[in-house]
């Protein structure tokens, strides 16, 4: 693992390369697209490149696809759900509940064919990924470890520079576009006094027998920590878990990377006072001291400094420290073992200074910084694919997970196709009378905007006079101002953005997500919806970059001309005529200034003979000889008192009926 790559070796290596850099190696292989890493992200983008017949190669340092899953998760249970039954046949909808499959046109490559378990065994993922690579004949070069990446200016290159990659055998590759899908494979190892006594998640024993009768301290509060604790909770004396922040439960935050219910046995035993416990403390401020008996003690640096202001390192085993301080310290008991489960970070070491992506700040420091289009902030032509691209939606949507980044990879591919090959972002153009139908279809089945809510959204581009529209799927909304540059589509006559959102006051750590008034049912209260529900923004003009950056806090988009919430639904089925479709139609009508109602041919006939302008439905349908004829059964029904076919309840009529009842 590059993790254990000694620093001094690296620095020598860098020196060598830098000297090489002055002359570009003449002996290289040119590739339009280079993908680094054959994990799920790399395979997903490779699939799209293959489909569009682009020249590409995937470099994989191991001899198999998805090698990460050969060791991780250590306890071999994936926590991405594999829901094989939903009661629906709609394949797109079913992907909303299939968190492991990659996108492809082949139904045999759905994960449900690879595992029957709701939480599948990690081995099935390796099996799946290698099948995926093999069946589509993806161009993967195994056992090719990219050791160094350099960018060189060149006028002829697509982006004004080429990427030069060097593998472990000093072979060079020149790439027009670099797709980095290396994942986040470096364990995060903070340096604190006594850290040498700590075992890492990556190599600690997974055999509970090794922990019988022991006191264990776990550093970290993520799923890896809880998975580790779960495994040994039955045999240890007690387990304490310490981490920087308070616990974040996935069910409270709606973020799948937070603690999942499947791993929470420790929470049970802590809250039921069964000896196990949770503590808060900053990893940078702890000290671990080994006593005479080899037991390990956790203390804060603060105490340590007070007593050893002179010389820290020499007195690290100072026993006197252990007797100091308050006598009811929560961690006063010694531990037999301390396990570090602090997560992973992106490997920045293979990049030269010029090609190195900037890292995020604060809790995003483990990720390379990217724009909303997943392109590196500082280097055009380099895209981050897969879990490492999660800085865009960290702790929000699913971009760090297979079920999210399979869609962001597709978005990146569509962007590449447009930018380098002139293939416009796919759209369908339809008459405006079909607008409601298309929106209802998408909000009910689309998986991309469901998993990547508030990150990817659908866009409706209106054409002049709002008689037609184009529908564009799964566009990164952060890049909305650059719509034309990224897709080749203009939004000169206004646009709708169809997004999915949780109520903003609902999902956060420590929120009571089961409070009795957690959901609303009335369409007029739709804006108070808490659970994931469609929100439609209407803009007369494409939002500018400035409007985007100055948008209200917590808003995914700037303030629109009009906004509409489709009321949340327990079944996420938004097809009810009165609760969902009618309010949506009223909203669209307000924005467009057009009548979007449907009419029977008879009404269209009457309009055609008495009005200069017909509603769009009559105009596109009836006048094109495609009017809707009711049959006798229907006519009888409609002529019942209170509803006349001609009197479609226009505004002029309705108050009148009301008044007449006085």
């Amino acid at each position, binding site marked *: 693992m590059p993790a254990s790559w000694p620093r001094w070796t690296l620095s020598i290596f860098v020196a060598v390369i830098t000297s090489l850099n002055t002359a570009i190696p003449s002996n290289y292989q040119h590739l339009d697209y280079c993908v680094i890493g054959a994990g799920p992200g790399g395979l997903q983008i490779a699939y799209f490149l293959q489909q569009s017949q682009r020249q590409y190669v995937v470099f994989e340092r191991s001899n198999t696809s998805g090698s990460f899953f050969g060791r991780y998760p250590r306890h071999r249970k994936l926590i991405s759900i594999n829901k094989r039954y939903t009661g629906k046949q*709609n394949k797109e909808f079913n992907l909303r509940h299939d968190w492991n499959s990659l996108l492809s046109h082949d139904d045999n490559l759905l994960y449900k064919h690879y595992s029957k378990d709701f939480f599948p065994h990690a081995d099935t993922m390796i099996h799946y990924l290698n099948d995926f690579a093999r069946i589509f004949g993806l161009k993967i070069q195994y056992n090719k470890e990219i050791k160094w990446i350099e960018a060189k200016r060149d006028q002829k290159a697509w982006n004004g520079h080429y990427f030069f990659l060097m593998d472990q055998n000093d072979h060079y590759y020149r790439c027009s576009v670099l797709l980095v899908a290396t994942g986040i494979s470096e364990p995060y190892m903070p340096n604190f006094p006594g850290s040498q006594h700590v075992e890492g998640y990556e190599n600690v024993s997974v055999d509970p027998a090794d922990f019988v009768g022991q006191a264990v301290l776990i550093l970290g509060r993520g799923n890896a920590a809880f998975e580790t604790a779960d495994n040994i909770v039955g045999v240890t004396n007690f387990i304490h878990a310490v981490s920087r922040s308070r616990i974040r439960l996935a069910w409270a935050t709606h973020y799948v990377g937070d603690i999942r219910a499947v791993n929470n046995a420790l929470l049970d035993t802590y809250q039921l006072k069964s000896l196990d416990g949770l503590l808060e403390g900053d990893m940078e401020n702890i000290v671990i001291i080994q006593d005479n008996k080899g037991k390990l003690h956790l203390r804060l640096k603060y105490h340590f400094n007070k007593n050893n202001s002179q010389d820290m390192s020499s007195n690290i085993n100072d026993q006197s420290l252990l007797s100091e301080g308050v006598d009811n310290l929560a961690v006063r008991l010694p531990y037999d073992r301390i396990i570090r489960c602090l997560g992973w970070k992106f490997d920045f070491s293979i990049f030269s200074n010029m090609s190195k992506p900037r890292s995020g700040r604060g809790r995003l420091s483990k990720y390379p910084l990217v724009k909303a289009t997943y392109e590196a902030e500082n280097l055009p032509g380099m895209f981050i694919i897969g879990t490492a691209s999660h800085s865009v939606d960290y702790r929000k949507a699913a971009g760090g997970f297979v079920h999210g980044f399979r869609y962001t990879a597709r978005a990146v591919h569509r962007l590449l196709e447009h930018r380098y090959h002139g293939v416009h972002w796919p759209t369908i153009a339809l008459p405006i009378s079909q607008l409601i139908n298309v929106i209802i279809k998408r909000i009910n089945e689309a998986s991309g905007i469901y998993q990547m809510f508030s990150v990817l959204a659908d866009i409706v581009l209106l054409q002049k006079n709002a008689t037609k529209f184009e529908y564009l799927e799964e566009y990164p909304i952060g890049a909305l101002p650059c719509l034309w540059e990224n897709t080749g589509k203009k939004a000169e006559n206004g646009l709708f953005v169809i997004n999915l959102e949780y109520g903003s006051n609902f999902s956060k750590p420590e929120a009571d997500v089961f409070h009795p008034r957690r959901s609303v049912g009335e369409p007029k209260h739709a*804006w108070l919806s808490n659970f994931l529900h469609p929100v439609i923004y209407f803009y007369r003009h494409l939002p500018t970059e400035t409007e985007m950056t100055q948008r209200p806090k917590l808003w995914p988009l700037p303030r629109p001309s009009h906004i509409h919430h489709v009321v949340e639904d327990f079944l996420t089925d938004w097809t009810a005529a009165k609760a969902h479709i009618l309010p949506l139609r009223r909203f669209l009508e307000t924005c467009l200034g057009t009548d979007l109602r449907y009419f029977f041919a008879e009404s269209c*006939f009457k309009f055609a003979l008495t009005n200069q302008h017909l509603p769009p439905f009559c105009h596109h349908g009836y006048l094109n000889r495609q009017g809707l004829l009711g049959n006798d059964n229907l006519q009888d029904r409609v002529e019942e008192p209170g509803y006349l076919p*001609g009197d479609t309840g226009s505004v002029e009529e309705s108050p009148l009926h009301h008044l007449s009842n006085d």
Partner: protein
Amino acid sequence: MAQRQCYLYLGLLCAAQFSVLHCVSKENEQHFVNILQSGKPSLIYFKGITNPSISLFLQQLEKSTESLEEYGVTVAQVDCNTENVPKYCENNHVLKKAYLFRANIMLRSFTVDTLFDVDAIVANVLFVLLFNEIKYVSSLVDLHDIENYMKGQGDVIVTFVPAIGVPEHRAIMETAYVYGTKYKFVLTTEQSVLKDKELQDSDKLSPRLWFCHCKMVMDRNEPCKKTFFEQPLTTVNIHSFLKVLEAPLVMESTVGPEDVSTVHVQLKMPVIFLFTQRETYDHDRITAESVAWQLLGKAGVVLVPRAQLQPNVPEDVTVGLKSVGEDLSISYLVLASVEEIVNLVKSEGKHLSTTEKDDEDESEDVDFRGVQDDEVAEAIYRNGWRDLDVDLIPALTDRSFPQSLLATPHVVVLFYTVWDAVSMVFLQSYVEVSTRLADLKDLLLARVNCGDWPDVCSTENATQLPVVKMYSPGEKPLFYSGMLGVQSLLKFIMLTRIVNPVHLTAVEDVEAYLRGKLHGDLKTYQHISVVGLFSPDMEKELDTFIKAANCLKGIVVTGCYVGNDHQYLSQRFGVAPPALVFAKHEESHIQGVQLEKTNTEEIVFAIEGSMLETFPEITVENLPSYFKPLKPLLILFIDNDDTVTLNVKEELAEFTKIRSMQLYTTCWIDLRNTQVGEEILQIYLNYLPQLPALILVQLSSGSHVFAFPEEQVISRENVLHWLKKLQSGQEPPTQWPKHQRWNVREPVHQVEDAL
């Protein structure tokens, strides 16, 4: 002719011994005849079968008796079950019309729906009777025309009501009854007329009345001054308003404010007193007039000599105000500008009206946003069609779809979704078509629910739902592009099943085909036979024809004959190959068209053209084929096949052959086949004329309509003469009020900040 007919009916009416079964005026013994002969207007309802909505109407009719009597209108009903009055009692069903007579002449008919309560009855009846006194306008231009005309002559009272028959409409009609000779009354239901009136959005639908002071305008270029009436439109309020307007603009008093009595005081309106002295009189008079104009209809203005003020009044006061309240005392104020004075009155008015308004708001606060106003969605909702039994039609999946295409020669597939109301209505028709075609072994009707199989629908390019596609062996699948109804779909399927063109091998076959003898099963689906005639060396022409035949798949099945019988063919059909021959089945006549260097589109166009008629009956289904929005429509409305009607139809059929008449789309609508035609007539004329009636409609020129005079016989000469008169602009068009205008309703209010 038409008029004579009318008298004939009335004669019959009189001859029958009418017992007015339940004369609303309770004079049971009085004969119906007497009512008619009295010469007074009468509103008569002929009662057939009663249903709940009719009995509701009858109640309202009874209630309106007294009010109408005040205007000299008699109200009566005739029971058709005992007195079968010709014409008026004709069909024994629910009779949905009431008729207004003056003497022996039927002035108008009203559908019962328009007479929904007493206000509506009185308003509608007076609207007809006061035809000369109150003018309907539908645009600002019309209004300006009237204003211009009235300049220097008289004042104009303009009223906007959101709909015909509302209480405010009645109020203005009753006012017009009294003041009709004094002022010109104008009525509109068009919001566009309000456009420049600077109204708030919320006011856009509420009735408005304003007074145009046109009489005093001497310069034609000067606009008429306007005074807006700001109280609820009731007869009493309007009457008070007019009384105030008739009073002098500024009253000059010689006594003190306490003793002044004006019409305003009697009507409980505030009065403003302005004080003057001889030195400033001219200036004060101008100020007073300025104030008075701004407060016209809201308050009176009186100019009082300062000398008449009581000694206890401070000397520096400029204005006195007599408020509306019980307290008759006068408050004295020091106000410097005209605006301050105006605001003083306006703020007082506001204070009063808010307390009044509260109750109203509550009753009017009806949430229309949740009301389903989509007739298709409503029909589905009422029928509960989501539970429609569609199991007879196989539902295809991604797997069974390709298999089905292989298993049956012809496969028809409906692509739909269950949430789409249009899909669900059409599915009903589809089920019916499927039942009717169940016997055909080579045909399968199936469906794909795009909510379940979006992938199938997108590969089949079914993006606009609902859509029907027909798959036949060895041919490109064909999208159905006809009406979403049983008959059209049946026709499409039956015609598409047949290989197009049909190859005819012998001349006898050609003749048989033209007579509709070959493929007899097609006769129900196409009323015309088309055959292309070619000789063996005309490969190119034949190819073009076959392409055209392919384009017309599902619309018409053509025949095709290739042979060397030039001479016979030209003798028989008057054309030599390459040629097209058409035969309409109901006519014996065969028509031939020579094909010379024609391309596919031209052939398609020629065949489609041959399927159209020069004087067609327009129906809901065929209108799109004939509809040309820019061409004036000359429509004959008929409702029976009596000799008069037949004669008129014949006259017009001949008429359409005149060259100059190609300018018009001439057609007829039979109300028995096309019931909605009656509503259309009602919209055009606002009453139902005697049928047959000839109407000229110009949609392109802003909804102009002309009715052929009822008293004239519809003959070629008369119609031609009439049209010439219209062209020369001698007849003014009438415009119909647009009843079906659509308005945006604000969606549920979104509190954005709550995000």
